[in-house]
């Protein structure tokens, strides 16, 4: 979500955001039956339009279907502003930011299982550890002091407790039964990670990284964090950083600075290579690299992608989600590891994430 404060403008002038939807589709689709061995694509939907959706592409590209949640559960609406999907055991947990809820569905059949709609406030991302779910929540965007990580009881599907954290908890991941939360900053600009002890459900450590940590992943016992830096409209713009953290002692072991006014995002690590994006370009560097590449692995501009909205690398394929104009149906492009375009799909509004459903 890059909307942040622009949301108010959207509320005030209905013409401002050129988008919307309704769920009535003329075509009657039938369920595929099984939605495994493929990738689930979360489409955020227009803010306020209640048209978040899921799409599915099989690993062999033979099957593709949009609106798979609605196809399987025709009487239900997924919700408003899909933010993240967490896969755990047989279930997919779909975090719906503006609806303030999580829909729990069977990840292989898409059959609806449960709804978690209390105890969440501006929920963002989800991870699982120690038999529990952990969901970052901004609380009120305008308040820097009401942010928390909600702990979900995975047998009753209720929020069992809340762990207060500093402003703007965003991406979250589990490693070795600990939970790492990147404080992108919400309406402000964060620069830390919180480490959560999942036995006591408390913040056990805080690690300072660069400004606006927006994506993170663990590889070979190290946590890699891409910090976007403060944007151009911030009081003082800062460049991005790639930060490596030694998880044995939670200290920063190396930091690589990006060039001035460069704002990377979308870190993904695959086969000892770090991938990230800057604008429309995709970059690749070895996990042990000490300098950043000066040229992109490839650019998506040929497809008209105006800034990569969502991104993932899996099995030598690179997935790019293009939000187009944030009103029209979005596009998903699948590239080879060298950037050859292999597949192209029209998905729902604003493709926001890829979740590999093996």
């Amino acid at each position, binding site marked *: 979500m*890059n*909307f*942040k*404060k*622009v949301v*108010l*403008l959207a*509320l*005030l*002038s*209905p*013409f*401002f*955001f*050129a*988008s*919307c*939807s*309704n769920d*009535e589709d003329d075509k009657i689709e039938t369920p595929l039956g099984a939605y495994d061995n493929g990738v689930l694509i979360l489409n955020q939907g*227009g803010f*306020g*339009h*209640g*048209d978040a959706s899921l799409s599915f592409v099989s690993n062999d590209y033979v099957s593709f279907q949009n609106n798979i949640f609605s196809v399987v559960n025709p009487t239900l*609406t997924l*919700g*408003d*502003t899909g933010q993240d999907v967490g896969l755990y055991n047989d279930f997919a947990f779909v975090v*719906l930011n*503006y*609806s*303030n809820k999580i829909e729990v569905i069977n990840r292989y059949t898409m059959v609806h299982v449960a709804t978690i709609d209390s105890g969440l406030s501006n929920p963002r991302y989800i991870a699982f550890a120690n038999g529990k779910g952990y969901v970052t929540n901004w609380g*009120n*965007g*305008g*308040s820097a002091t009401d942010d928390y990580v909600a702990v979900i009881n995975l047998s009753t599907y209720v929020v069992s407790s809340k762990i207060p954290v500093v402003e703007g908890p965003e991406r979250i991941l589990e490693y070795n039964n600990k939970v790492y939360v990147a404080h992108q900053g919400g309406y402000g600009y964060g620069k830390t990670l919180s480490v959560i002890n999942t036995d006591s459900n408390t913040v056990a450590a805080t690690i300072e990284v660069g400004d606006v940590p927006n994506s993170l992943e663990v590889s070979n016992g190290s946590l890699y964090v891409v910090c976007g830096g403060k*944007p*151009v*409209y911030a009081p003082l713009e800062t460049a991005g950083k790639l930060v490596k953290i030694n998880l044995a002692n939670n200290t920063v072991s190396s930091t690589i600075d990006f060039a001035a006014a460069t*704002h990377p995002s979308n870190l993904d690590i695959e086969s000892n290579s770090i991938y990230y994006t800057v*604008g*429309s370009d995709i970059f690749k560097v070895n996990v042990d690299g000490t300098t950043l590449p000066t040229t992109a692995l490839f650019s998506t501009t040929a497809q008209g992608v*105006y*800034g990569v*909205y969502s991104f993932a690398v899996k099995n030598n394929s690179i997935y790019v989600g293009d*939000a*187009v*104009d*944030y*009103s*029209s*149906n979005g596009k998903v492009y699948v590239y080879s590891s060298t950037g050859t375009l292999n597949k192209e799909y029209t998905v729902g*509004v604003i493709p926001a994430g890829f979740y590999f459903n093996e």
Partner: protein
Amino acid sequence: MTINKLFLSSFLFLCQFISAQQDTISLQEVKISDSQLKKFSSTQSVQQLNDSIISKNQASLTSLLNYNTVIYFKENGLGMVSSPSFRGTTAQQTAVIWNGININSQLLGQTDFNTITTQDFNSIVVRAGGGSAIYGTSAIGGSIHLNNELDFKDTFSNEVKLQYGSFNTFGAHYKLVASNDKWSSQFSLSRNSSDNDYDYLGTTKKNENGQYENSSYSLNVGYRFDSKNIIKLYSQFFDGERHFSGTLTAPSKSKYLDLNTRNLVEWDGFYGSFVSKVKVAFLTEKYKYFEDKEESFFTNGKAETFIVKHDLSYNINSRINLNSIIDFTQTTADGSDLLSKKRQVTSGVLLMNHQLLEKLEYQLSLRKEITNTYDSPFLYSVGAKYEATKKYTVKVNASRNFRIPSFNDLYWQQGGNPNLRPENAYQYELGQEIGFKTIRFSATAFLNKINDLISWKPNSSGIWQPENTKKVTTYGLESNFTFDKKIGNHAIIWSNNYAYTVSENEETNLQLIYVPFHKLTSTMSYSYKSASFFCQFLYNGKVFTSTDNFYELKDYSVTNLGFNYEFGENNMFKAGFQVLNVLNEKYQSVVSRPMPGRNYSINLIFKL
């Protein structure tokens, strides 16, 4: 008076005409501040909604215009933010003119039509098509004129209106008119509130967090010093609090406060064939947005506009009228997400109306603005009206109009673009009117080429930013058919509007979102002695809700019925009963925001 000479010389500077003076003061120029509305609109289509129509409708300007004009409205749920599309244009391309002053929000560039209480005005006039040469920014699709008419004749009247309806909707309105040949005054006070917790038809959900309340007053006073000089004061105030309702799939806990004040002092001088109007206006707008109504933190914005204007009209002879306007406007705005900025604009306007032949009249309007914030194009309007017969009139008009970037467009901290150009549009229209005793029919075809449309989109760094990108062509047809007949104690008025509108993005050839191809309104009123009955019908065709025209909202029609009865001495009491959406149509004006089903309203009016 030296100041008087200054105005005179400014007029001479602009038009350099001197001629023998003639004494023809139009009554209209005494009564209303917006004298151009009458004098320089005859080559376009103009629709007047007077007291009797205003009082039949619900209190918001949205409701009045939605059911009685071709203008399409999208409303974020009943009573929430509401914006128009006039002739297929965007919400910022309709100007709202209060007693001659453009009152579109300086921050948003548009008016929220649910923050205007219609009963505060004597007449509301819809002027279709280009009007930027006279009224400045935003008059591209058309303009809505809110007028308070000051009459200098012996009058004293008091009126109280009370209204109560479904969802605990309450309305109260008081109006005092007191005038004689020296003084003319009007005072009105309005209060509207609603729990607005209607059921979403076909679901188990309700419209949550949709309650609203607003208060407004309007005070208008004129004093006639002598036969040549009148001083007028127009003052208006609106204070509203709305909770922004949730949607079908998202709850809401937000709240929004509006506070708008408008003050205008005017000195009218009638010197033979010259009419001089000196106006000084001060407008303020403020909003506060509470993301969480239970919490104390909020974001806000405000703008203050100061206007000095001199409007000088000169009748060269009985056939030619010249009119110059010099306007200086200064706006300062700031807010929690807005850079603090000041904008100064000086405009010069020259208008001419010439009755060339008995049957042929033409009009010219020219405007140029000077400012350091944007490049201002030269604006004009050229039009002619030909009365072929008493019953058949043809009108033709071409104009260039614009919409200047709003403060939010230019100075929003996160993404505002100070390099924006104004949107500008060339418009052409051809209208025909046929009028008999009981039947009137009009049809106007229009074509509008809009360039440099400002739209917000993310740039390559993912930052939302407005840019002058799109080109849009709108064209279509507007028509009105009215049947009006009295037989003895029976009176029937049947008024219909239909518009066909295409509004196409030139790049994609796709229809703009939230512009219906078809809109139809029909109102039938029947009265017999003291009883009257009316039926209102509205049809809005389907609209697309995404720019790729993949998603759409289906068409809908809404029917309202009303019954009124007058009784007591001199019919001093009037009781009314209305059933709104009588057929319980399930519809959404904006996606995911259902509108209410069948609901009821009663009202009582006391006239003293």
